């Protein structure tokens, strides 16, 4: 059971939208923005509030890659593996991140809830390839070495 503050926040977010099916995606996007993940309890709550079934809400939320039912790290690192980045060696960067943070393609968030590492199909920053983003800020022309420095910087070391 979540703290009541979560439901209050959800109410506040729902109030910014209409209570109908079409608002589901914008509402849960806002919730995810708030908590960096989508608490399952809130999805159920939102579904009830806007008058759709829980199964429908889950169906929609699980379809889109952006929604995560698991808590994400403070820093969400997205490694672009679009064509341009792939050609310019984005995978070694991803592998280095996995190695540094003890993650793999099943486990995306570090135990200290500091970092989440994901891949993204294309950030549209192909000219900056290989690119990654940290909480939506683009870091251009990365390399496995640079990414290690970046981790240090983010950790405040």
């Amino acid at each position, binding site marked *: 059971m979540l703290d009541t503050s979560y439901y209050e926040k959800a109410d506040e977010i729902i109030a910014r939208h209409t209570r109908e099916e079409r608002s589901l995606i914008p509402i849960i996007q806002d919730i995810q923005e708030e908590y960096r993940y989508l608490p*399952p309890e809130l*999805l*159920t709550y939102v579904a009830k509030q806007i008058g759709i*079934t*829980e*199964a*429908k*809400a*889950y*169906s929609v939320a*699980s*379809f889109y890659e952006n929604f995560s*039912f698991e808590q994400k790290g403070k820093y969400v690192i997205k490694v672009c593996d679009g064509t341009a980045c792939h050609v310019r060696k984005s995978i070694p960067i991803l592998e280095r991140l996995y190695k540094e943070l003890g993650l793999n393609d099943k486990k995306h968030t570090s135990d200290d809830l500091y970092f989440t590492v994901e891949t993204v199909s294309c950030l549209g920053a192909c000219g900056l390839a290989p690119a990654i983003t940290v909480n939506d800020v683009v870091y251009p022309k990365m390399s496995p070495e640079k990414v290690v420095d970046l981790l240090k910087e983010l950790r405040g070391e």
Partner: protein
Amino acid sequence: MGVMTIDGRKVEFTDEPNILTVIRKADIDIPTLCYHSELSVYGACRLCTVENDKGKTFASCSEPPRDGMVIYTNTPRLMKYRKLILELLLAAHCRDCTTCIKSGECQLQSLAHRMGVMDVRFENTKELQPIDDSSPAIVRDPNKCILCGDCVRMCDNVQAVNVIDFAYRGTKALVTPAFDKKIAETDCVNCGQCRVVCPTGAISIKTNMDVIWDLLADKDTKVIAQIAPAVRVAVGDQFGLPRGENVMGKLVNVLHRMGFDEVFDTSYGADLTVIEESEELLNRLESGEKLPLFTSCCPAWVRYCENRYPEFAENLSTCRSPQQMFGAVVREYYKDPEKNLGKRVVSVSIMPCTAKKDEILRPESSTNGKQDIDYVLTTTELVSMIRKSGIRFENLEIEASDMPFGIGSGAGVIFGVTGGVTEAVLRRLRKGHNRVDMDNIKFSGVRGEKGLKEVEFDYNGRTIRAAIVSGLGNADALLKRIKAGEVHYDFVEVMACYRGCVMGGGQPVPAGPRTKSARMKGLYDSDVNTQIKKSNENPLVQTLYDGLLKGKEHKLLHRNFEAAKNE
């Protein structure tokens, strides 16, 4: 309106919504795994793909017919595609066909066989999913799911229940309740319609057959059966008899042969329901409270109302369903040591319905802390048991049901069709016995396949407005309107399954449009052939009220949470 050319032959079409229907009309059984005329067109399996004279391919389920169109349904190219699609489906599907409950009736299996898939070149790399048998009604085996979406559209679009839906996407896509919950943890009403449309063994009936066999063999147990109206018109065609034929007499015979000690008719229970419910309606009309009165014979509907419209829970009739009334009466009757002969009495009901398996477990389905009905067997399970026994059902002589609960009125029999309860109540409330009186009721609008029917009738100078709805989606729409104050009724009959119990979730599948109407007709024909038309004129019922039931009407015939507890 127009003419199109299918495989070189001219075929006329009128208002067919798509080419697939026209093709089938031309007696070509074009394969599909996701097309159901009563569900929206989904277009996922692509098996019905056809080719036009320019070599363009398209799915026939979603393409409207156009005059002058030239299409081919069976070119080598199309056959190759279909075979490959089936091979791909099989490759991602559990292939333990020989031990699958659906074997022999599985559409995937039969199509793969028809298209000549003799080899599957791809490995099944799907992660094994746990089987969900948490529900009393259905079992879900995701490993057999081909993602055709039939169950999802049934659950959502037709039944407005929507406890299962697609989740995730691509090869990770699956059909599941929210957050991978078990069915029992959801608002599932156990209607079993998902299982009716499932082409494979991914959703099947939770069966009780093995325990029944053991009980039948046990000398110290008296096994009592009751047969619901809709069952008798859905078994014959499974054994080569005409669709929709009433085979009640053969059923009694076969059950006796299998070892059931007594075989009764649930129509008798229905008669009790009619009498009680009519009384209740009159009382409510008088007091003007809790109107409209909603019928409560359908357990899927009762669950739906409680889950989604709790504000109407009070409007539900307090009457037990025919199954439960009968169960309570039978239990009471066999309390007598002269009747039970010192044996344990086990009460089994044979039902067209999966939700009945849930109904017997409800707290108010017990008397004195004991379940009134011990087991529910669906029609489908009964058919399996008959097959297993080796008895040649089709050749059996007719036998009469056992007494003293072996006769039901015509009103009780038509309970199995949408509108039947209302028609039975009308017969009870209105004066007159003759054919003209019966026909007046028959043609008042209670009959027919429509999902929502409205009738008005006069009772002692007062106009009573009734609505008859089948299919929970239709019920949902109606409830919304009642809630909004757009419509007003005194009496509302609800059956969760579209067309009523004859199309219940426990009936044999597949059942095409002809089977559907034959089953409905079968029950109406049984009514025609019955001398007793009105429930209150069933002599056995009269005897019961005067004897066993005296003073216990409320306890045995109504949903009574107090009585359910141990005395």
